[in-house]
């Protein structure tokens, strides 16, 4: 088990390095840097001015060196102007004398860089916004997982019954409705003058004070898309369990149907959905970005859109690190959890 986890973690770190390098490469292409220089300096910068700005801030070094600096394994860039002797250092925070700046500053030192859009330290922004998204995710899981499991189990315990068919139709309909569609429909029905105005169409105020009125619709929107998929997986796993020999034995022994479902079938039927729920996290991340944009809830997804839209390199890199780590960690947990839950699985 220990070796298995170690190997998985090693692969995970390798994957994370590759992915961040790809993001690093794509955000550090010359046109993007040129845009950065122009937004930081002024729009009508001449080409020479752009080059000198980029030179001064160390953007023209080889890609691998820059990546190393960002990670914190290579010494930070220091530039000395040959004419004035002014020193610009990557590691100097604002107001610090550049000559006293530490040699290394990167992810490993806990320095995530400075956001050019929000004018704040990236680590602060990410921490605050991630907290807000965490709140959203928590409620999404609270709504989504139990309802999906109940739907799946109810549908799967009697395959082909009427209840199965109606619930399966519901699951198909919910997987066919992406967040930007269900969000629009929910707002129209429950938060517009055309429909029934009982909820709010924006969730901006939910950041400080989440109430049913401003938070239900975003939570519902994300949950709806995920419910169908998890419910279908639960149903499949439940129908499979219900045809197993030991269930038939229990039935023949005279155990009541309710007890067969609750005591014998349920536990075994919930192994597969566990993996599915864990693997839903990348999708939830997608949903979060869409819903936060639609409902104007200023969490992690909203920051990601802002960073990507304005080519805020440090912030975008930090966002991708967080996103990639979330995806990889949930994959790891799902693998390990699967092994723990299902004693038949052997790790080779």
């Amino acid at each position, binding site marked *: 088990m220990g070796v298995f986890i170690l190997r998985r973690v090693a*692969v995970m770190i390798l*994957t994370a390095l*590759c*992915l961040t390098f790809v*993001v690093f490469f*794509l*955000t550090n*292409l*010359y*046109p*993007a840097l040129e*845009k950065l220089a122009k937004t930081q300096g002024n729009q009508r910068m001449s080409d020479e001015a752009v080059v000198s700005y980029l030179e001064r801030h160390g953007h023209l070094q080889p890609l691998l060196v820059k990546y190393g600096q960002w990670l914190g394994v290579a010494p930070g860039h220091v530039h000395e102007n040959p004419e004035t002797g002014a020193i610009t250092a990557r590691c100097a925070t604002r107001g610090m004398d550049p000559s006293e700046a530490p040699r290394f500053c990167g992810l490993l030192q806990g320095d995530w860089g400075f956001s050019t859009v929000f004018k704040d330290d990236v680590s602060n922004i990410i921490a605050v916004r991630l907290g807000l998204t965490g709140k959203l995710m928590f409620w999404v899981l609270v709504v989504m997982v139990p309802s999906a499991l109940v739907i799946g189990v109810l549908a799967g315990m*009697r395959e082909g*019954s*009427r*209840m199965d068919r*109606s619930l399966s139709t519901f699951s*198909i*309909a919910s*997987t*066919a*409705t*992406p967040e*930007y*569609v269900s969000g*629009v*429909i929910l*707002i*129209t029905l429950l*938060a*517009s*003058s*055309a*429909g029934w*105005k009982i909820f709010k*169409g924006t969730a901006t105020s939910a950041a400080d004070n989440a109430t049913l009125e401003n938070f239900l619709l975003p939570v519902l929107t994300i949950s709806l898309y995920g419910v169908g998929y998890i419910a279908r997986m639960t149903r499949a796993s439940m129908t499979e369990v219900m045809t197993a020999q030991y269930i038939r034995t229990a039935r023949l022994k005279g155990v*009541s*149907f*309710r007890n067969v479902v609750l005591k014998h079938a349920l536990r075994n039927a919930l192994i597969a959905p566990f993996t599915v729920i864990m693997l839903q996290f*990348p999708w939830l*991340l*997608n949903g979060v*970005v*869409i819903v936060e*944009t*639609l409902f104007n809830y200023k969490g992690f997804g909203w920051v*990601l*859109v802002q960073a*990507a*839209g304005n*080519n805020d390199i440090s912030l975008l890199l930090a*966002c*991708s690190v967080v*996103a*990639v780590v979330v*995806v*990889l960690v949930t*994959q790891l947990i799902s693998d390990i959890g699967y092994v723990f839950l299902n004693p038949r699985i052997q790790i080779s």
Partner: protein
Amino acid sequence: MEPLTWTGSLSVLDPVFLLAWVALGIAVVVQIVATFLAAEDIVEHEVSAFTRKMAEYSVLGVKIVAGLILLLILVYAIAGILMPTMEDKGIVGTVSTRLLPVWIALLATFAASIAFKRRLGFYGKLFDSMVGMIGFAIVMFWVFTAIFGAMDLIVTHDPLAQVSGMKNKVPGTALPNVEGAFPYYLLGGDNLARDVFSRVVKGAWEVVKVAPFATLFAFMVGITLGLPAAYFGGRLDTILSFVSNLILAFPVILLFYLLVTPEIVQTGIPVYMAAVLFIFPIIFMVILINSRFHVQPVKRSVYLVITLVLGLWIYSGVAWNADPLGLIEFPPNLLVVFVSVVFVNSPTVFRIVRGIALDIKTRDYVAAGQTRGEGPWYIMLWEILPNARGPLIVDFCLRIGYTTILLGTLGFFGLGLSPESPDWGSTINDGRKLLSIFPHPALAPAFSLMSLVLGLNLLADGLREESLRD
């Protein structure tokens, strides 16, 4: 002029229609509860006559009410076509009249397919399953709407034309000055005073022309890489699986933002990606033909030359926009969208193909093929692939739906397609700012997208059911 009402002179039926929906809601809930209780009773051997009766009646009730609703919808649609004036037709009737070519094409398709269903193989079997037929009908409805819409048969106005005074007007509003133009905005106007109905119809074409081809390309890439990964295994498999997991670990939206922004497009990276991704269909076809006609050199050479000439010609036009004959053009912004969608979809297809092929590889007929001395590519493409077709076709349908959702996401974030573009995602994005006051411009494309994806999902479900029956 007076604005159109929804149902025109058929509005006498409206209360019945509404009541039927309410009754359906109640009946479905009663039915679920009652059948649940009744089933419980059977198992517990306590036959309670009351719950049994209630379950039976509620099932009957649902059937009757659902039938009534369907009948009323048909009445609205058909009577709408037959009514003489637009005021009598109402919005529903007029829309139904505009869609007349679609109805005819749908009827013809279904009549022909059902008449010859025993001779149509896998496709014909679809018409044995109710779910599959409903899904197919919805999908074909949108396909025909898109095609006829692109031929300008259905649209009432230019989807980009703005008519002053029609900004955010509700469905059925009459145009202020009619001179030769269609006198109404059937589904209202959007925030730039454009006709929502025409935009939705044109938007269908945007989806239909990209989604199936993007999915097909993703399948070609996935199959060409997935089969050898599963068949040869070893280091090739490890590397390919690692790369596909790498792409899958990327949040899709981040990837879109990284690939579709103008700065990246400027560097030409999407074009290089297109160059790599679009070569796979040619490789696939070449290997396919080469392995099949390996022993008939003349036939092989002829087919190979034809494939290569055609393939490379299309390839040069599509990927590099450098068609020597100047016939094939691919708009650069569409190419970026196309490439990113293919790129996102291929790793999943790769994983599916690899999983199925790993399973089929262990079958006896593969071993028999190997002992006969068949080459690895022949076994992969002519022994394994045909036997994997069932799940792949099902996944193909599902994946077109997923691609439609992805295209909508791109539009929703305003990425890639031109801002004026009538595609559904962009239209929803345009409409969402004023959603709580004027919901109709966003609702129409939202429902369209939902119904198309739902149709594809139902179609996939029907296909799965039928393929399991073999």
